[in-house]
């Protein structure tokens, strides 16, 4: 490769000797390859690790009386329906009409409601209730939990897949997402 002949060309008038083969091997290509492989193995070992999303669900057998009542006005309920649609409403079920949205818009709604609750109550955190219905996929559930993390909702969301009220079911049927 980039090797210059520095051996001096003074061979005139001498006997022609059998040429000695250079024993040096050019290792550049080999080193290139080795480093490429090193990089590959370094990256794959540390980057292939999957990510864990910690989820806590309410204890089912917990019958203690110290359950806190949620303030309806500070609660946003998100229903996960089929076809990647969500329905959300603020406050009590049945009193306010739920909005049907796609996952692309839900983040804005969460942020809006978070701000509204904080403004109305002097900085209190919004309470989120997530209700995955039978039409939702696992991805929807992960997505909504991810949205909560992105919108920095600090209070732990209540994941409730047991008590989906009739009013909620009716609405979702009407909207065609159950």
């Amino acid at each position, binding site marked *: 490769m980039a090797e*210059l002949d520095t051996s001096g060309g003074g061979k005139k008038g001498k006997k022609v000797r059998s040429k000695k083969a250079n024993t*040096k091997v050019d290792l550049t290509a080999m*080193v290139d390859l080795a480093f490429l492989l*090193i990089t590959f193995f370094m990256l794959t070992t540390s980057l292939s690790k999957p*990510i864990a999303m910690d989820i806590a669900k309410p204890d089912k057998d917990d019958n203690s009386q110290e359950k806190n009542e949620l303030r309806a006005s500070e609660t946003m309920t998100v229903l996960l329906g089929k076809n990647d649609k969500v329905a959300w409403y603020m406050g009590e079920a049945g009193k306010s009409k739920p909005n049907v949205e796609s996952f692309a818009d839900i983040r804005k709604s969460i942020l809006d409601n978070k701000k509204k609750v904080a403004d109305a109550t002097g900085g209190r955190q919004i309470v989120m209730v997530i209700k995955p219905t039978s039409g939702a*996929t696992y*991805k929807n559930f*992960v997505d909504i939990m991810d949205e909560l993390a992105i919108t920095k909702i600090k209070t732990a969301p209540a994941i409730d*897949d047991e008590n989906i009220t009739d009013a909620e079911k009716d609405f979702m049927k009407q909207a065609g997402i159950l």
Partner: protein
Amino acid sequence: MPRAKVQRKSTSIDMTAMCDVSFLLLTFFILTATARQPDPLDVTIPSSTFKLKVPDLDMGILSIGKGKVFYEIVGKDIKMATLDKMGEKYGIKFTPEERERFGVVGAFGVPIQSLKQFIMMSGDERTKSGIDAGIPTDSTNNQLAEWVMQSRTAVAELHNAPMRVSIKGDAKEEYPAVKKVVDILQKQKINKFSLITSAEGDAQ
């Protein structure tokens, strides 16, 4: 007077040492990289922006996909201890060779009755035979709950630590299938678990 000639030096560098070092590192990385067991159940995990890495000790991973549930216990010693306990529970005797082979099995999804057969198969046969129909989760024959329970005891006994339960669900899996598994976990008072997702770029 002739000009002083600048001595020409060879531009080639001796690469031997560099080559040695790079291959040493290469060997190290190849050896430390754990060979990934092929997943018998093909799941596409959803992505999230969470940053927490999955720990690789004291864990049980439940894979859910196509309505089937597979279970993977992390750690050879835990696997073998769990197998002993399960054998005791269901009255199946496992030979030392079977224990040894089960110690290196990745995720599995067979009813315990055909586990012996499953263990003795080679990797190819396992996928071809169609023996892996998932671990039974019916209320009358809830082997999954038993597996989780026994592996938790094994982890508690051997490592003196609580076992983390992770759920690896297929993105398209319907929520009720996931709920069924979560309900089994909640029956055992596991109210906290991790969902395994792949990394996603920061969303703003």
